[in-house]
């Protein structure tokens, strides 16, 4: 069973190939360079390296956001189309969950987040229970302050995982003090192999129905809804 994992949802772009539950190839970059140009060549190159042709694929796992709207769509367009064309299952996994998997050995709360500007983040809180990663607080587009307040009440150690850590580190330390655990660099870079593992045994999504996990309405739509409310 050959699984292709694709993550173009944030600045970190990753592709991994798993063969019978083993990671046989992984490609990761963390640079602000166009995913649209680089994703397909990366997939092609990695497939070539591991001597796999497209029709040898059995499943595709894709990071469905949150993250960059455009990046998420690049990943999903690629994954959904490949799955449809090859007639194989596709599974969408939350980009926050992918990061959370990097806290595999941590016993407290795991808080992955992506910065969403103006004090907001995309975040959820996870925890490993009986070998399984479980969602403790649902993923939201939320003020970082609100996330930290919630975590402070839990009075548990919290592992923070985020490529945007530097933007919020000070505040995290202010609010949580030594409850906050912040590991060094590589832990904050989403690994596509963990994405592949996460989707490995998960039921397939409906290929047509799989949609991005934006966690936020388009601005025009949010404004329109607000205006509707005010008019009523």
């Amino acid at each position, binding site marked *: 069973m050959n699984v292709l994992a694709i993550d173009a949802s944030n600045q970190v772009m990753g592709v991994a190939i798993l063969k019978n539950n083993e990671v046989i190839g992984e490609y990761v970059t963390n640079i602000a360079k166009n995913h649209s140009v680089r994703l397909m060549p990366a997939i*092609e190159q990695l497939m070539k390296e591991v001597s796999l042709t497209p029709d040898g694929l059995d499943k595709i796992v894709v990071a469905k956001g949150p993250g960059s709207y455009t990046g998420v769509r690049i990943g999903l367009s690629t994954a959904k189309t490949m799955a449809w064309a090859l007639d194989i299952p596709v599974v969408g996994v939350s980009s926050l969950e992918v990061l959370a998997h990097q806290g595999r050995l941590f016993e407290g709360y795991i808080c992955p987040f992506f910065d969403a500007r103006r004090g907001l983040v995309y975040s959820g809180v996870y925890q490993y229970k009986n070998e399984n990663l479980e969602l403790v607080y649902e993923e939201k587009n939320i003020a970082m302050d609100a996330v930290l307040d919630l975590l402070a009440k839990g009075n548990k150690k919290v592992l923070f995982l985020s490529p945007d850590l530097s933007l919020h580190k000070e505040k995290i330390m202010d609010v949580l003090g030594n409850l906050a655990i912040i590991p060094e660099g590589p832990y904050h870079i989403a690994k596509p192999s963990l994405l592949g593992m996460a989707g490995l045994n998960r039921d397939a999504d409906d290929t047509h129905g799989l949609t*991005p996990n934006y966690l936020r309405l*388009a601005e025009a739509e949010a404004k329109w809804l607000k205006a509707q409310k005010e008019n009523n």
Partner: protein
Amino acid sequence: MSNDTIVLGIETSCDETAVAIVKNGKEIISNVVASQIESHKRFGGVVPEIASRHHVEQMTVVLEEALEQSRLSWDDIDAIAVTEGPGLVGALLVGVNTAKALAFAKQKPLVGVHHIAGHIYANRLEQEFKFPLLALIVSGGHTELVLMREHGSYEVIGETRDDAAGEAYDKVARMLKLPYPGGPHIDRLAQNGEESIDFPRAWLEDGSYDFSFSGLKSAVINKIHNAKQRGETLKDEDIAASFQASVIDVLTGKTLLAAEEYQVKQVIVAGGVAANKGLRKALVDKFAKTNIPLYVPPLKLCTDNAAMIAAAGTINYQQGKRSGSDLNANPSLVLQ
């Protein structure tokens, strides 16, 4: 192996998610368009982010429908063509990445297509080209005169310096409080109005085939304002008829001049505004007096679709042009 060239085209440059399959660049085998117009109406125009969101939701559904309708298998398809630009970047990206994934998964050649080349080649689905050929492209985003001396060669001899004709239509429509998209409403009102207001015609310098519609747009806005201040009432029908007459005069006038100067064997009209009844009639009337054949595509091929992209892509493919897996969306792609 047959000698036919069969190309699958993908178009997502604005608010239509479209896939089509075309044989030899001339014959539509299937042509599916999922329009988002209903979803953008409430915003009074296309919202790029919402267009992109719809594309990603619709893409594989439209692909599947186009393939099913064609009753072809992947073995029959020679290449994948996709609009690489110009257009809304986020919208284009969905189509481009879909096309690349498809080309890789099915190991087919990939060809990028210029959206305007697509609009021009929509005509070849009805009528074989004769060169030199002059194309007038009028749409929400474009007003251009393109000279073609052979297949796949495009020389832009005139283009708008400010607004596209379609934009001017939309802005005037908004002034008249007509629903979005305004173009067809102005066309309809104009049929019942009189050209009683003398709006300016922007001919620009002598010999120029460029266009300009921002002055006309301002003139219409001023006229409506001034009338309001003086307590006069202008009939919307008359405003529409007079505005449209100015647009059409310049479009048809410049097209005829260019057709004569370049001694073209064929004039074709392309783009969404080519669906405009007033424009179609004026062009037909004008060229009836000459011996230059004029072709206006059927309405369904005027608006954005993927059959036109497959048709233009067929020429690229036959001429040996190929795009790599690093193909990107280019919102300001130049036609050449």
